[in-house]
């Protein structure tokens, strides 16, 4: 699984950091998404899929 985050689309709602905190964080200045792992470990995949699908600004994408 490979993750992509588009920080120009991100609105800093924090849904990804809430849903999969091991994989997503927010920067302190603008609250925008920070990828902690572009290739997240297997056990995080269900949460990552939920986070990608739940992003309010469609800023996240994944290829499997």
């Amino acid at each position, binding site marked *: 699984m490979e993750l992509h985050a588009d920080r120009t689309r991100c609105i800093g709602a924090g849904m990804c950091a809430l849903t999969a905190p091991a994989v997503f964080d927010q920067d302190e200045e603008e609250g925008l998404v920070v990828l902690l792992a572009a290739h997240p470990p297997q056990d995080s995949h269900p949460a990552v899929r939920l986070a990608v699908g739940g992003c*309010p*600004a469609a800023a996240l994408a994944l290829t499997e």
Partner: protein
Amino acid sequence: MQHEPSTTAPVTIPTQRAAGCPFDPPAGLAEVRERDPLARMTYPDGHVGWLATGYAVVRTILADPRFSSRYELMHYPFPGGPEGPIPPAPVGDMTGMDAPEHTRFRRLLAGRFTVRRMRRLTDRVQEITADCLDALERGGPGTDLVEAFARPIPALMICELLGVPYADRERFQSHAHTLMSMDAAPEDRYAAMTGLQEYMAELVAAKRAEPSDEEPSGEGPSTDLLGELARDSDLTDEELVGVGGFLLAAGLDTTANMIAHGTFALLSHPAQAEALRGAQDLAPEAVEELMRYLTIAHTGIKSALEDVELEGRLIRAGESVTLSFEAANRDPERFPDPDSLDLGRRATGHLGFGHGIHQCLGQQLARVELTVALPALFERFPTLRLAVPAEEVPLRTNMNIYGVHRLPVTWDEG
């Protein structure tokens, strides 16, 4: 499941909640959703637009930039609303802006409301909650939970975060209330807007005169966000006044209603309250489910900027679409057995905080407040119950944010 495009006459928006069902959306919404989740709708001003009630279509429209949030483009869906054209959003009111204006404000603020910063407020929320529980106990059986508990917790938190003196609340609380009222007379609405602006203008002037010594960054939550913005951002005085009033009003009347209405719902579902009391770690899921089940921010309005084809229908440029978040969050195609309150369900994906670029800026603060306040209340008062019959609890049927006006509660003392 396929829905046949509607061949029936346009609907009007159902607004009547069934007697004895204070937690359910107006009864007619489910019927409209079953028949046609994207239905033609006649607006009180005669406009023929749309009413979206299905989860999938509501979520799609919220995420689609071809639909505008600008007030001056919208037709108001509820009877008794403003007559004539709706003026544009006041300066700083982010809910009435599209990108890129919206992006500028969101970028300035989102970093102050991150998951991590808001979680650092947990201890402070616990302190305030404990104080409010003491006040409730001092008030004794029969005390109004809204006044003693639900309102002060989020009000204190938003004041501390923004750098607004809580002692000034007489000067802004009633104005914020009027602005949230769907049936406020235009002159009252105008007076409330002016009053809130006057208050914020004084505050902003004071912050400009005496720059904040708050550290600009760091990982902690803000304790003077308006002061920081006055010092560090490129916002004009007018913008700062506007955005300050917007943040304050948004922080006052939302979570307060979730605390009070959430309490009412739990008191009416004793097995669910018991489950929450028995397992504190259920609280985050319980909060999501209460957000879904109650959907107190019940309705949104968008207007098409161009012709948009959706679900085989053509929404024409200029047409308004009323988005029923409360109907969408009860859509059985998304949430099985949607009319049951089930704190153990995974309600992730609900539209209680909205969706799209306008999704609630303060949602992580609300989550912390609700996750602390609701379990603490039921821990402290295991015998908590209504002090009046449920049907006598006054409901906020006339407000943009649903809930209860008052919630008299009682408990066994000693």
